[in-house]
């Protein structure tokens, strides 16, 4: 089932995408609707399909067990490759709080100074067991497809933690949709003349 929801932050991010010649990093799977949209924008798109890549890499013994060392394999870029727009839709919940900071660091260092990082995070107590699929319907409208009927507990990501997890970025705009998905547009703090927040530290369990 697909339901369309407003995504004002995405509209803003897409409006600022250079045309032609924009560069987009999509951490989700390759979806025809999104590729067709970026074709119209004459953008170059790198598709990572992060969740499936993590599953694939986990099955490979040759990859180091340390997560930090896996990330360059999962997000392998060309030398000097930078992105005007990064899309991470409904992924942080599934990658997890312990793993996401390394992904975030990799993305932040590859985001153009004036680039935007568009993030969707489900904020309810539960979430589908698998990430939803999102398709661009228009610049400010996203179609959400729930592909899993099973549900799982959803981690809570407060707004402040989202910014802390993305060192050097700030979220000047955020929008909570009626479907329980928080939309963030993260940009370099320097663009807004703001000091970057402190680097996030992983939580320690109380003994």
């Amino acid at each position: 089932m697909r339901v369309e929801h407003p995504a004002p932050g995405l509209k803003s991010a897409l409006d600022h995408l250079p045309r032609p010649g924009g560069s987009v990093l999509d951490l989700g799977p390759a979806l025809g609707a999104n590729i067709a949209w970026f074709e119209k924008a004459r953008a170059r798109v790198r598709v990572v399909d992060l969740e499936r890549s993590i599953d694939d890499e986990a099955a490979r013994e040759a990859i180091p067990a340390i997560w930090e060392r896996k990330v360059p394999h999962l997000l392998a870029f060309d030398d000097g490759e930078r992105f005007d727009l990064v899309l991470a839709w409904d992924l942080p919940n599934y990658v997890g709080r312990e793993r996401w900071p390394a992904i975030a660091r990799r993305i932040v260092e590859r985001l153009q100074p004036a680039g935007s990082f568009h993030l969707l995070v489900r904020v309810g107590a539960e979430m589908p067991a698998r990430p939803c699929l999102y398709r661009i319907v228009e610049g400010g409208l996203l179609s959400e497809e729930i592909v899993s009927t099973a549900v799982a507990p959803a981690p809570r990501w407060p707004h402040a933690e989202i910014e802390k997890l993305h060192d050097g970025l700030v979220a000047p705009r955020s929008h909570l949709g009626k479907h329980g998905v928080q939309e963030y547009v993260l940009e370099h703090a320097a663009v807004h003349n703001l000091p970057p927040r402190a680097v996030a530290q992983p939580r320690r369990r109380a003994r």
Partner: protein
Amino acid sequence: MWKRENEPVPNPHPSAPPSAPTAAPRHDPETAPPRMPTPVAASRAVIGPSIELTGELSGSEDLFVEGKVQGKIRLPQHSVTVGAKGRVSAEVQARVLEIEGEVDGHLFGEELIVLRKSARVRGDLVAPRVVIEDGAKFKGTIDMEPKRALATGTGAPATGPRPLPAEESSRSAGSAGPSVASASPRAS
């Protein structure tokens, strides 16, 4: 090594019969896969499922791959279809590329690249139009501005998929990329 077909070939996509390349309307990539602009009765070479080929392949007719190919395929004036059983580890250059099977390598389409829902592709796609059906697995870069791709090096001839960081370091130490047989079997 492979058989030639001078008579109409059974269409692997009943829903997408071949059609003339003239003025095809723009299709919704998810609801109406584009019709392949292949001449109806064009001759077509077939690499069958039991065939394994290593080397550089060029010629003057369309190609259908159901076997395994490693190396390079250069048919810039013709279409190349990798069937559901096809396994290609090669750089492929064609006018129209349609992928149903597995490809590990860069694809260059003069007009169009289509990844069907059963496709598994890892590499870069360079073509003015790229269509990806839902269900297709793809990891890599899509550039629909071929001139830009050539300028940035994405479109430069390559010998295989983008190496991982560890592979990059080993290559810089002197090891060569995938070997390509000196023999260059002709498809025509």
